[in-house]
């Protein structure tokens, strides 16, 4: 056991203080393998050291919650003995380095998080943020990321049913690739990661281990100075074919009762999977590293423990069930190797060529992981901008065309046509609607799924922006008629060691927490990605929310396209004309952006519940929530989706541009054939609702504006993405 020197550059990202804690825990200097293990376990990624304090404040419970944060994915009850299991995860940095493989392995990783718990994945979502369209790398990154997400999901045969794509110069040096998977399991067949019990075999399955993605810190360490190319940490390459086999083999084995615990090997590979299983089960684990299937020659214990090779799982089986498991994995043409055993030592002991290579007590490795209360100072509030302070367009219709033809609001068809969104035969409708809907196989029920975040709001006011991210993701679910049940979240921020970034994180979490509480949508899983900055330029604060809801009969859902002529168009919710921080203000008016729209959570809940009930009662023929771009954009999207125009006869008592493009929250546009009943019930429920026009004709006519043909709207909406991607 040679000891590395303790120069700061040799600490693999640990601070001197953290290193001293390790000395206390071990009572000696760690060797290279041990230091590597501490370094990854105590990395921001695995230990959540900057965010943990705040994550604890999020509401995570409710009668619908079977498993909140802390396992591979969150689990909620969807009735009839079934559970939905879901989580979102980032693969930001790898996707910037190698967009195709980075995005692909991001999808692979989140799929494993879900099926490791016993669920068959039924839907993928993705939330993407790229730099300015004008930035020289953007097109290449979009192309690679979209192809990578499709490449993995299409091959494994899980439909990619929705997501979001945005562009902003703040992501020029740090794109965001957040992938979400939703799966379905029986409530009595959910698998956890606690390896309770001693003398149990620890079993490795899946692909062999190579030097993929080993901590870059390796490079700085003295022992590897004379390295050639061979030991360079390499980019992880995804193998969706192997993952498909792993998925089927795991589900087949899970149908037996041979498994005690199972955990995928994700970040920090064998290290975090073995430590977490042992720690949760209060046991020790001895691993024989010689038995780990290896893809490359001369791998060291350090490399084996830190490799992030994909498509691997670690399981603890009941004793004597190894052969049964092996038969299943062999049928699926996969490796299975018994690499260790649990014991009562509460230590992680690694054997290598007949000797002990590492020996670490597990409780302090897990519990002494640092947790920081990083300083922050609240983000200064921005001035509220009155509609009159935001320049009016010369022509409302032209402004609308500019907006729906812009990079952030145009059709995402170019993206989702590269994803198989129908495989598994349960995708209700096509992408492009509000929440995506996936039927629960063999039943009438469907899950409704959406992802959302409006980073410019979070930047303007982290607390309101955090609330808004939850509110918007949530709002998409009642828009189709489903009841939101729970959320997952991906907190993407810059460097938390800077006060103003930490303030964004704290504020966003506070806002999210309040919203989840008020909307009865507890957080059941999530992921944190910090240090998204380049040369001191941080990304916009981007807490992405994924919301999952349920509808009892998918046939009672509605879409967001106008369905017939002569329907009454009703706006649900209050339109005050909030233009501060709006897309209109940003793209067409300029000037300082002002405060983002406030979120009234009580109103949000009341309006959403009302709309959902009205849909289920059959009063609504189409529904669309109002978000970026305001009412005008929402109406245009409904016209495009339905291929039917509309005459809007509202007489707003606010400036027309504020009425058309203001981004007030908690609003929906619905169409009804019997408006009186709807309006009557709305009044009774105290929900603001106003008939504002009628569907029909070949054009959309906004108040005081010239008609725009639906054909023109559709053309303009469709054009930007394919043209941008085809140009260079």
């Amino acid at each position, binding site marked *: 056991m040679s000891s590395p020197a303790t120069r700061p550059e040799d600490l693999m990202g640990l601070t001197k203080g953290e290193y001293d804690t390790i000395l206390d825990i071990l009572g000696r200097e760690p060797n290279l393998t041990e230091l590597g293990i501490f370094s990854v376990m105590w990395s921001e990624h695995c230990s959540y050291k900057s965010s943990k304090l705040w994550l604890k404040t999020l509401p995570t419970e409710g009668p619908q919650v079977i498993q909140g944060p802390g396992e591979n994915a969150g689990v909620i009850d969807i009735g009839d003995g079934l559970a939905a299991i879901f989580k979102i995860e980032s693969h930001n940095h790898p996707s910037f380095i190698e967009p195709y493989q980075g995005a692909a392995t991001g999808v692979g990783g989140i799929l494993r998080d879900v099926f490791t718990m016993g669920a068959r994945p039924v839907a993928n979502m993705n939330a993407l943020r790229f730099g300015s369209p004008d930035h020289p790398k953007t097109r290449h990154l979009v192309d690679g990321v979209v192809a990578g997400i499709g490449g993995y999901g299409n091959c494994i045969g899980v439909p990619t049913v929705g997501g979001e794509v945005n562009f902003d110069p703040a992501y020029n040096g740090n794109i965001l690739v957040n992938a979400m998977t939703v799966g379905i399991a029986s409530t009595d067949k959910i698998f956890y990661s606690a390896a309770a019990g001693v003398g149990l075999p620890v079993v490795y399955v899946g692909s062999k281990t190579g030097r993929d993605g080993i901590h870059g810190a390796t490079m700085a360490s003295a022992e590897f100075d004379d390295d050639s*190319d061979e030991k360079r940490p*390499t980019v992880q390459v995804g193998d969706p074919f192997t993952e498909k086999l792993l998925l089927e083999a795991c589900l087949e084995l899970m149908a037996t009762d041979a498994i005690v615990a199972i955990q995928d090997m994700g970040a920090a590979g064998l290290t975090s999977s073995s430590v977490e299983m042992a720690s949760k089960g209060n046991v020790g684990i001895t691993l024989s590293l010689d038995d780990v299937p290896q893809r490359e020659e001369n791998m060291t214990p350090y490399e084996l423990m830190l490799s992030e090779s994909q498509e691997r799982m670690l399981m603890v089986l009941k004793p004597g069930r190894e052969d049964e498991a092996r038969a299943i994995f062999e049928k699926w043409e996969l490796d299975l190797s018994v690499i260790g055993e649990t014991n009562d030592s509460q230590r992680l002991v690694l054997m290598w060529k007949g000797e002990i290579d590492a020996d670490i007590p597990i409780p302090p490795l897990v519990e002494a992981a640092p947790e920081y209360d990083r300083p922050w100072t609240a983000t200064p509030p921005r001035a509220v901008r009155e509609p009159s302070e935001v320049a009016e367009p010369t022509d409302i219709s032209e402004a609308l065309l500019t907006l729906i033809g812009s990079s952030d609001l145009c059709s995402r068809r170019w993206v989702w046509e590269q994803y198989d969104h129908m495989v598994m035969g349960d995708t209700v409708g096509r992408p492009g609607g509000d929440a995506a809907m996936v039927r629960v196989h063999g039943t009438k029920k469907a899950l409704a799924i959406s992802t959302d975040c409006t980073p410019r709001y979070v930047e303007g006011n982290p607390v309101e922006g955090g609330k808004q991210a939850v509110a918007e993701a949530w709002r998409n679910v009642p828009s189709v008629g489903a009841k939101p049940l729970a959320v997952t979240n991906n907190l993407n921020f810059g460097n938390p060691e800077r006060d103003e970034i930490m303030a964004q994180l704290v504020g966003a979490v506070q806002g999210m927490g309040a919203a989840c509480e008020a909307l009865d949508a507890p957080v059941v899983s999530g992921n944190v990605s910090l240090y998204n900055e380049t040369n001191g330029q941080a990304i916009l604060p981007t807490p992405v929310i994924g919301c999952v809801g349920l509808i009892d009969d998918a046939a009672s859902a509605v879409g967001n396209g106008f369905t017939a002529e002569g329907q009454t168009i009703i706006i649900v919710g209050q339109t005050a004309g909030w233009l501060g921080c709006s897309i209109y203000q940003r793209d067409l008016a300029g000037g300082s952006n002002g405060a983002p729209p406030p979120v009234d959570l009580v109103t949000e809940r009341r309006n959403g519940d009302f709309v959902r009930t009205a849909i289920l009662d059959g009063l609504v023929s189409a529904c669309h929530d109002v978000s970026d771009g305001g009412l005008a954009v929402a109406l245009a999207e409904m016209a495009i989706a339905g291929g039917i125009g509309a005459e809007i006869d509202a007489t707003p008592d606010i400036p027309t541009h504020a009425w058309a493009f203001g981004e007030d929250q908690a609003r929906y546009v619905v169409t009804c054939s019997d408006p009186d009943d709807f309006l009557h019930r709305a009044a009774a429920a105290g929900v603001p609702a106003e008939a504002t026009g009628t569907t029909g004709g070949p054009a959309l006519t906004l108040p005081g504006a010239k008609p725009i043909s639906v054909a023109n709207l559709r053309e303009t909406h469709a054009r930007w993405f394919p043209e941008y991607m085809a140009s260079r």
Partner: protein
Amino acid sequence: MKARVHITLKNGVLDPQGKAIHHSLEGLGFDGVDDVRQGKFIEIELSGNDPDAARASVSEMCEKLLANTVIENYAVEIDD
């Protein structure tokens, strides 16, 4: 003039295709295969007639488009 370009995965980079082909060859009963790696072979017809210029230009094509230099190596030959 013709350029022949070989694009291969760097050492240590996982090659799922090679792995699957290897497996399939075994299934077909071919013994004695230790490893399979799959790369690309690109032939480019060029209209110029200066081999050095051609080599320089094709190398630039590799850097810019043909190879993903994060995970792939390339080799250019000019047949003149």
